[in-house]
């Protein structure tokens, strides 16, 4: 019996260890304890309990309970203030976005506005991650204090009890001096911790000693929420420039500099004497930027419709009919596997004058593949495409849009086949939505914001055929131009571009 108990204990321990190890591997964790974000792409790890425990212990490393509780209170104050700053920046982003959308509607949006928007988007991303990180650190420390406060034998039971008792006042103080709306959201998150800890203690059969509820702070009327939001906006507008913003400002300058360096690198390539004459083009088969088409640089009011994943025995022909009736063109990105099954559909596309392009052999996730499999998905796909279509594809779209980064092996392989990689800037999300009307609404709004570009649909779903009809009707009503993708590419690079 003892052996069984030992085995079960060992198994449990293994599961816990491996579970946390896996969690650590699956998210980007951060090793330093500083409050400022170092890189924009770093994301807080919710499960980084060891880090929280270390911070908690260092805060409790004080001579008496009074100083211990003060140290934690100071730490919570600092995290709360950082959380408010991040919320303030998010508010600024929302306000600016509203302003730009108004300008866009009035058709007076300038390049300076767009530059400003890019900067704000950058700031917003950092603010969001920053806000998440600080909030989770705060919640982790609160959770540890809550456990200690509910365990009379715990080392820091007394100090933790004082901390928990003061949290409600601390929240009220935050709402009064800081951001009311952010305080409400914080109270709700703290209450989630309360519920979790209560359930965990009850599960062990132990008595719950001290678990507060902040429901009366966050479960308020819609009117109160509106007032809190208005107060938050005022708070955001009135607050002074902080160290955090100085930090983000520097990050933005670095980001801008790197962006310029990328452009300089491209310029360097353009002046390289080994380049072919096509180097003067703005778009040409290349593993970097010039080989990647998003549609954002298309002439205003010009659209290309693209349809992925087919040919499908019924829906692709439905797409042909809709496009043909609307007198509009389309480019079909097909899997070679399907193309070989339905060569007659390819012939039909040709007779309608639609373009055919490659979407790999079997729609595999390319970055996960070995070199041999990549050869099949790209090189064999091109070769077998040619056998059916009697021409090499000159346009390629990676399945799931996943091609790796600029200059990756996959992009090099596509460029080596003399093809451009085609992305999109309007996503209908038609694969996950069966309602043609809502697909259309989503697409219409993006079309009006973008004004130009590439629309992504799929020719393997029945709802997409119906949605395409609504989309083409709208494009016609609004007098947008729908042109063949190779023709638009030719116009952008001022040199014709062919595609079967």
């Amino acid at each position, binding site marked *: 019996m003892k052996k069984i108990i*030992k*085995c079960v204990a*060992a*198994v449990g*321990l*293994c*599961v816990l*260890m*491996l*579970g946390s190890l*896996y969690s650590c591997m*699956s*998210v980007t964790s951060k090793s330093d304890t500083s409050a400022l974000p170092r890189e924009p792409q770093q*994301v807080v790890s*919710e499960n980084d309990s060891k880090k929280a425990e270390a911070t908690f212990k260092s805060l409790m490393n004080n001579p008496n309970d009074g100083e211990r509780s003060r140290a934690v209170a100071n730490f919570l104050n600092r995290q709360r203030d950082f959380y408010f700053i991040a919320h303030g920046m*998010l508010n600024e982003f*929302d306000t600016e*976005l*509203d302003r730009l*959308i108004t300008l866009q509607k009035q058709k007076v949006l300038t390049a300076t506005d767009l530059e400003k928007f890019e900067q704000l*988007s950058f700031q*917003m991303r950092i603010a*969001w991650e920053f806000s998440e990180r600080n909030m989770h650190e705060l919640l982790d420390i609160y959770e540890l204090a809550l456990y200690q406060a509910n365990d009379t034998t715990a080392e820091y039971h007394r100090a933790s009890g004082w901390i928990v008792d003061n949290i409600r006042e601390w929240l009220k103080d935050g709402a009064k001096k800081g951001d009311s709306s952010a305080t409400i959201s914080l109270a709700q998150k703290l209450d989630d911790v309360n519920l979790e800890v209560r359930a965990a203690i009850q599960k062990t059969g132990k008595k719950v000693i001290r678990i507060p509820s902040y429901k009366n702070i966050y479960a308020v009327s819609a009117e109160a929420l509106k007032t809190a939001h208005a107060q938050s906006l005022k708070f955001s507008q009135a607050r002074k420039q902080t160290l955090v913003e100085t930090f983000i400002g520097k990050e933005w300058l670095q980001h801008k500099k790197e962006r310029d360096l990328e452009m300089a690198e491209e310029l360097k390539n353009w002046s390289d004497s080994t380049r072919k004459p096509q180097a003067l083009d703005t778009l040409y088969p290349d593993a970097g930027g010039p080989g990647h088409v998003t549609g954002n640089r298309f002439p205003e009011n010009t659209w290309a419709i693209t349809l992925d994943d087919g040919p499908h025995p019924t829906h692709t022909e439905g797409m042909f009919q809709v496009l043909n009736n609307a007198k509009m063109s389309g480019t079909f990105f097909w899997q070679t596997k399907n193309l070989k099954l339905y060569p007659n559909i390819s012939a039909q596309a040709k007779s309608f004058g639609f373009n055919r392009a490659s979407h790999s052999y079997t*729609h595999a*996730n390319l970055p996960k593949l070995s070199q041999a499999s990549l050869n099949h998905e790209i090189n064999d796909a091109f070769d077998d495409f040619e056998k059916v279509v009697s021409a090499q594809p000159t346009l390629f779209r990676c399945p*799931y*849009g*996943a091609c790796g980064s600029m200059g990756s092996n996959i992009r090099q392989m596509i460029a080596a086949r003399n093809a451009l990689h085609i992305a*999109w*800037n309007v*996503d209908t*999300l038609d*694969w*996950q*939505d*069966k*309602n*043609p*009307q*809502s697909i259309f*609404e*989503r697409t219409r*709004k*993006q079309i009006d*914001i973008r004004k130009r570009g590439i629309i*992504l649909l799929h020719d*393997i*779903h*029945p709802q997409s055929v119906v949605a395409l009809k609504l989309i083409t009707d709208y494009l016609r009503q609004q007098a947008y131009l729908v042109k063949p993708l190779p023709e638009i590419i030719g116009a952008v690079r001022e040199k014709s571009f062919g595609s079967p």
Partner: protein
Amino acid sequence: MDHRKIFLAFAIIFTFLYLPAQASWKLQELARGSNALLVEMDLLLAHKKTGCKLDAASVSQLSQNLRMLVDTRATELKDNKEQIVSLLKTCKKDCTCDTYEYALEKITESETFSTTTKLSAEQRQTCAKKLPPFCQSRLFKAIK
């Protein structure tokens, strides 16, 4: 065999048993995530406050990453499509029918399982509100 050896043996066994179990997602979890992403995009385009504060391009990228997981899960369930069919019985409650239909279409190459459910953006939002915030979920982090 001493305790350290027992511990090591179990550690090795569970490395193989536990990790693959964690890597696989429940189709229902993915389907709920799909609904949440549609809500995110629709709120964003309606200029309303969104949960995850993403731009349209990011939602599109997350949608592609999610589709990758759905495709993988659907392929895993290829010989067990009854499991997906059974999910269709209750899918209207959490707006997940579309993803199950997508998975069935993918593995059976037919549309015989269509529930003809056509959800509005508002209905999707109602479903999403009943669930914990998607942006704080494990799935969101996995596809981000």
